[in-house]
């Protein structure tokens, strides 16, 4: 069985416009950025599955994934969100084989919020992925 988080991370790291904004700061299986990160480092994306299903007799994994897009301020957090949206909704990475991603789509449009503990601004959104299970 594949590691869905790694597949999604790899798919996003192959998206040039998103990487331009966040570099390699795309962190799987996290609700908040890792220790040491601060918004002045630049934008980042954290994500984790909140649920999902195995389809087609287990040959396809279909997780629902929560994304949080951080930035120094609201405009930069939203710029990261828009790049993530394009990476997912336009399926830009699929033409090269998708790195294991068969399809993906945004489930809910982003909403700007702030972290209770740090006050950091982020945009919350959700997406569905369909991944080859092997």
């Amino acid at each position, binding site marked *: 069985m594949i590691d869905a988080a790694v597949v999604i991370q790899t798919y996003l790291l192959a998206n040039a416009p998103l990487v331009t904004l966040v570099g390699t700061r795309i962190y799987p299986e996290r609700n908040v950025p890792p220790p040491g990160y601060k918004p002045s480092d630049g934008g980042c994306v954290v994500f984790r599955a909140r649920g999902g299903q195995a389809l087609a007799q287990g040959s396809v994994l279909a997780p629902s994934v*929560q994304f*949080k897009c951080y930035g120094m301020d609201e405009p930069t957090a939203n710029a990261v969100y828009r790049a993530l949206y394009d990476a997912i909704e336009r399926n830009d990475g699929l033409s090269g084989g998708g790195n294991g991603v068969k399809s993906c789509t945004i489930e809910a449009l982003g909403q700007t919020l702030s972290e*209770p503990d740090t006050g950091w601004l982020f945009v*919350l959104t959700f997406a569905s992925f369909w991944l080859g299970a092997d």
Partner: protein
Amino acid sequence: MAQPKVNWYENDVRLVVDDASDELVDKLAFQVLGQAGINIQQNGQIDTGFMLNSGYVISERSDTFGDTDPSGSYESSKTGQTVQRERVDAPRPADGGAVVGFAADYAAHQEMKNAYLYTAVEQVAAQQGASVRIKPR
């Protein structure tokens, strides 16, 4: 730092039920609410109990928002201190369906940390079989 208040009324996920009566919609909504409460307990997401008691269903037949605890001071079981808890306003009534929500203003952040409500939707859908499915907004 003050706790950010979140009014998260976005229709995040829906349970779609084939040929459902209002009665069945209500039944499923309360099943989701009950399962979400179980998940909150099992996830260890209880401090004052305010969030747990802030769950509600609004539908054509039911409106339990008024039964949720009001904003006020509540005792933290973790620290023993009194903490302020805020209830957000009720969402608009459901249009031909039912809304299941939690009115604690930090409920969305708890859902991000550990999805008690989305998981409840999945659990109820799985219990109901093929006539019920999850559909993103």
